[in-house]
């Protein structure tokens, strides 16, 4: 007797409205009571930036989702969210305070849930990018993709401090496009079944 279990990733269990989800993200022993490493703060903010570039109401969605996931104790309001994201060292108004592990967990969970909602779009854009680059065409040939890239560039330039060397590396449109596409790929991985664990774990790569 053959039992075929056909599990589509879109059928993943619905969002648990419980901060207990954060428990599924193991913290490396060395980071129990420490703040998030620099690269992690940068990465979290960039992923959220990519989400905002994909979805024009992204920042609103973050707050809404925070409430849905009962994370409003961590992400209280818009200003609070802005301050958390400004722990990104490349930000124009970078905060001196760092990101606690709990805050980072909340942001990662929100990012992964939002990404999952946009799975189809993300896949479409990545496939489009693949086809376009195979044909050596410019990004303008795909309206949705060029819209995403343009919006990402705009967000990035308006929020990042152009004097930082990390930002100077992305001075040209091409460099920013590459960054946006690579973030799109990471977002795709966040949508997976184990995406949240994988993304969370990757934040500590090379830091423990």
């Amino acid at each position, binding site marked *: 007797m053959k039992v075929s*279990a056909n599990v589509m990733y879109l059928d993943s269990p619905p969002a648990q409205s419980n901060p207990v989800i954060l428990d599924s993200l193991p913290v490396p022993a060395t980071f129990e009571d420490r703040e998030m490493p620099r690269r992690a703060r940068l990465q979290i903010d960039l992923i959220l930036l990519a989400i905002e570039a994909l979805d024009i109401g992204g920042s609103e969605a973050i707050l809404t989702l925070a409430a849905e996931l009962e994370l409003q104790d961590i992400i209280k309001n818009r200003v609070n969210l802005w301050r958390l994201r400004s722990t990104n060292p490349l930000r124009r108004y970078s905060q001196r305070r760092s990101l606690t592990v709990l805050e980072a967990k909340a942001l990662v969970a929100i990012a992964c849930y939002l990404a999952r909602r946009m799975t189809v779009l993300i896949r479409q854009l990545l496939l489009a990018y693949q086809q376009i*680059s195979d044909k050596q065409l410019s990004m303008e040939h795909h309206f949705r993709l060029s819209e995403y890239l343009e919006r990402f560039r705009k967000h990035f330039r308006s929020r990042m401090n152009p004097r930082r060397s990390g930002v100077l590396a992305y001075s040209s449109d091409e460099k920013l496009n590459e960054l946006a596409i690579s973030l799109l790929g990471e977002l*795709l991985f966040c949508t997976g079944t184990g995406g949240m664990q994988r993304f969370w*774990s990757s934040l500590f790569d090379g830091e423990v």
Partner: protein
Amino acid sequence: MTIQRQYSLPNCTLLLEGLSDTTGSGQIDVRPIMSILVNAECRIAGSPLPLTGGREFFESLLGAVSRYAQEFLSGVPHFPNLDNVQPLVQLRRINRNLHRLIVQRRGDVHVMSNGLTGNTASTAPIEIDLTTVQLFDLVEAVDQFFADSQTLPTLSLQVTPVERRYANADQPIVKRAAPAAIGVSSLAVAAIALFFVPVPEVQKPKDPLPRPAANSLDTTTGVSGQVATGSPPRSPSAVGSETVSSSSIASETTSPSSITSETASSITTETASPSPVVSETPSPIASETASPSPVASETSPSPIASETSPSPVASETSPSPVASETSPSPVASETASSSPVALETASPSPVSSETASPSPVASETPSTSPSEITATSTTESVGNSELSSEITDPIALRDLNRRLHRQILENKQEKLRFPRQLIYRVAVRPDGTVADYEGRNQSAIDYVNETPLPKLKTSTTATVSGTGSQEPVAYYKVVFTPRGVPQVSPWRGYR
């Protein structure tokens, strides 16, 4: 009972066949637990050949895919636990959007053949290039398998961050070494560049060499001037030896012009040339002149100079002035003792006139050489006026003191005001004229033009040009008080 589990995604299908560990409970589950894996098959869209294998292949696939997913997310490479054996399944990044899946043909890996190629085909590894989306589907299939607790529950998703020591390999060694290399190479380039820049030479103060251009008319003045200002290195022996040869030159050449030209050439060529001129006149007493010349002092000839100087005409004057002037001058810089000797050699003007071998030369030399000497000697006498003889007679001192005071009073301006007193040392000739003066403090130097001293000096030196320091002088201390009142007293007081 064979259990089949399939995790299908748009680009990747993972098909597992296994057995249930049916021990005991006879009830049939809807989804029994698959605990034994018999066969695993991975089909990737676009790749005609499915990858199949046993548990070894499947576990290797899980590990490779899981690690590579983390590597993709963080950019930090994840290395498998290296145990010399190349893993069956590997994933390598080709570029941002292409990832290569490499499966070795060994172990329990089976490659389904289409019948065209036999199983024994080759041992080359299978390589499949995946796009990012395809890779994600592979990862997602693996993750869904991990999440499925009913299939091989012993295998579950375990991701751990890479340790810091592995992350250091993040940047290639070339990139990390670049800053140091640039620093070292730029230092080297700078060193090479600076190597060719010449080392600045220390400029030694040049000896006042003969300046024939200044007064090329007669070389003797040039000679005497040069010697007077002092080129000490001339050795006495050289002087002595040269006398003979140069005298012969003098005797050979008759016309003065030729002599001058001759001596001029000798000046430029050999530095010892002045001595010939010296020895020309007293060639008979060459033995005498040779001996004093090395030791003659500056001070000694001054009386003679005073004798000769009043006769600027010099045409009639016998070569004696030449002797007097030139003989001491070559050795001017050398101190010393034998002033009597010099006087002797200088005084025998009759002797030299008797010999008178180069009278034309003599006629030329006196006319200019005295002035030259005064010019040089006056500048010197300011500094080291001890060298010229001094009047020490108290009666003469008192007389000169009065005359000097009167001169100053007559020539000074009506109202003089100075911030502080001015102190001068003034040299006065026996006839009461001012030979020279020098300021002894800074304000004296600053305000010298307001005092009558420059006027007194210039008005008097004109008439008695020539001998300068050679005549005896008396030294006086002239003080201008801040209110402009001059006070004159002998420099050393009345003995």
